[in-house]
């Protein structure tokens, strides 16, 4: 016989109540594990995406900063364009190392829209993660390079089997023949989902002659970023968005939802804790005679206290194990789950099994178990055996 024999005897005797308490704690632990894991997964994925972006600063036409961030992260069409002359102006700023202009648009192919970026050879210098997997960079009008996912999709659905093939797409209802000259290696960013062509060809295709949508900028000296942003914004019509701003905006957008979820989570933990406390208190009341008997047998106050405390902790521990297992499932389905209510999703998966989440999801419920069992356990340990053992 050891302490567990007695603790589990107590739990087993009120199965339904114990199970309900376990469920309460499990829900809280599941929410905690899922949230902390997905939050970490989301941030990691976003950061790696921004790393892949390569640019330190993106210049684009003045407008809503949220739209700008959405454009940088997700692509998409923005009505405002910059004059192509801006690129020269930007290059004159001493701290600017590379300025790679992009024209952006989309074409229709096999009933779906595909985003297209017109780029210059400078793009390769801005994006250190780029590696041409097959073929080469687009150099002439009508040539395109596919992102890795685009290529895989086309191979699956359109029977595309290699560089050199022609496809016919539609831009604003007009047919265009394109030649696939290259495939970009996997970057684990939205670049994998983009089709690239030359800047000049994209400008013509999307009616953006002498215009650019964004300029990806790499700096010589990151410490002077603020000054450079100031200089960039002195150029008429230019808005400069730094990677830090992008991160901040993304976190801000996710943060609003997170604060609400946190409140719900705190409530779930509180309710779980109160449930456990209620169970433990009822147990103590029901077992008054038994506790008195144990004391008459020579059980010390400390031992009684421990027995009841461990009962509470055991309930919470089992609850948190179950919760973590369920949370694991939720994290596994994290992308589908989050895309429902977050405006921006990284192209990488957000399903990350975080050690921090695991530690928190064990520590919090067990902490709550201890807190909610302390009072009932204290009551039990202070019971006067004489009163409780009176012959009724």
């Amino acid at each position, binding site marked *: 016989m050891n302490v567990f*024999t007695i603790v589990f005897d107590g739990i087993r005797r009120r199965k339904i109540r114990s199970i309900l308490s376990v469920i309460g704690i499990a829900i809280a632990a599941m929410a905690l594990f899922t949230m902390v894991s997905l939050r970490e997964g989301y941030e990691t994925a976003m950061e790696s995406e921004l790393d892949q972006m390569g640019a330190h600063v993106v210049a684009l036409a003045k407008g809503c900063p949220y739209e700008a961030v959405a454009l940088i992260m997700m692509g998409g069409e923005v009505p405002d364009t910059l004059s192509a002359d801006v690129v020269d102006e930007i290059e004159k700023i001493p701290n600017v190392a590379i300025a790679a202009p992009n024209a952006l648009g989309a074409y229709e192919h096999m009933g779906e829209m595909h985003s297209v970026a017109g780029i210059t050879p400078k793009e390769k210098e801005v994006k250190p993660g780029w590696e041409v997997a097959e073929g080469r960079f687009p150099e002439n009008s009508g040539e395109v390079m596919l992102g890795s996912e685009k290529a895989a999709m086309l191979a699956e659905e359109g029977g595309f089997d290699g560089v050199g093939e022609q496809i016919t797409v539609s831009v604003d209802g007009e047919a265009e023949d394109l030649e696939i000259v290259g495939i970009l290696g996997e970057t684990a960013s939205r670049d994998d989902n983009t089709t690239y062509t030359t800047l000049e060809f994209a400008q013509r295709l999307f009616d953006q002659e002498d215009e650019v949508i964004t300029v990806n900028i790499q700096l010589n000296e990151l410490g002077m970023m603020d000054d450079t942003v100031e200089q960039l914004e002195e150029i008429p019509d230019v808005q400069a968005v730094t990677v830090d701003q992008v991160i901040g905006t993304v976190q801000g957008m996710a943060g609003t939802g997170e604060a609400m979820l946190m409140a719900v989570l705190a409530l779930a933990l509180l309710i779980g804790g109160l449930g456990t406390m209620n169970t433990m208190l009822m147990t103590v009341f029901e077992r008054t005679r038994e506790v008195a008997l144990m004391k008459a*047998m*020579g059980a010390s106050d400390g031992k009684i206290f421990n027995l009841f405390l461990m009962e509470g902790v055991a309930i919470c521990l089992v609850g948190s194990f179950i919760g973590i297992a369920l949370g694991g499932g939720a994290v596994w389905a994290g992308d589908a789950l989050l895309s429902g209510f977050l405006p921006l999703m990284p192209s990488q998966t957000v399903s990350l099994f975080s050690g921090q989440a695991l530690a928190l999801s064990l520590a919090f419920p067990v902490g709550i178990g201890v807190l909610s069992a302390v009072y009932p356990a204290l009551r039990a340990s202070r019971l006067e055996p004489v009163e409780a053992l009176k012959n009724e």
Partner: protein
Amino acid sequence: MVVVENVSKIYYRGREEVYALQDISFEIAEGEMLALVGPSGSGKTTLMNLLGLLDKPSSGRIRINGRYADELGAGEMLRVRREVVGFIYQQFLLIPSMTALQNVMLPMYFAGKKETREIAKTLLERVGLGDRLHHLPAELSGGEMQRVSAARALANNPSMILADEPTGNLDRKSAEDVLRLFGEINAEGKTVIVVTHDTELAGSLPRILSLRDGKLA
């Protein structure tokens, strides 16, 4: 050896003082077997709780095996309660979800003993329940439950057994069995104190202490 010196126990009912025990003194020699009798409300249970160190007298002193109870620290008190006294109750007070064996092991667990299973098994065999080790209390008869209770009282090998109306809930035959068991326990040198209002039972024991209105009669 138990020495009770001028012990009184007062309860308060509102502001009114109620004497459960009033200035009683007596001695019980080691290995004695005696009945503590009296009508209900005469103070029998109060006295038993005092002898078992579950309660403290309002005045007077109790000396057990040469030590005054009021001089014992909390830790020593627990040790004495574990090692000197074994309780048996009228309602058996077995833990319903534990087997006979586990019920007998429990006091040894509280005393921090090892190898409790073997000792418990031996004790249950000794009270004639060798074939009932893994039965739950609900699966035992009243007499069997009281024998489990006796085995439990003996678990930490105390020098004194305090039985509060041990036959009150038993039929004639079971009561006789339990009393015979007490006789055997006493024959091994343990002090046995049986609290009862059954005069016939009391008459069969070597000594009777009679309480009436908190005083020895």
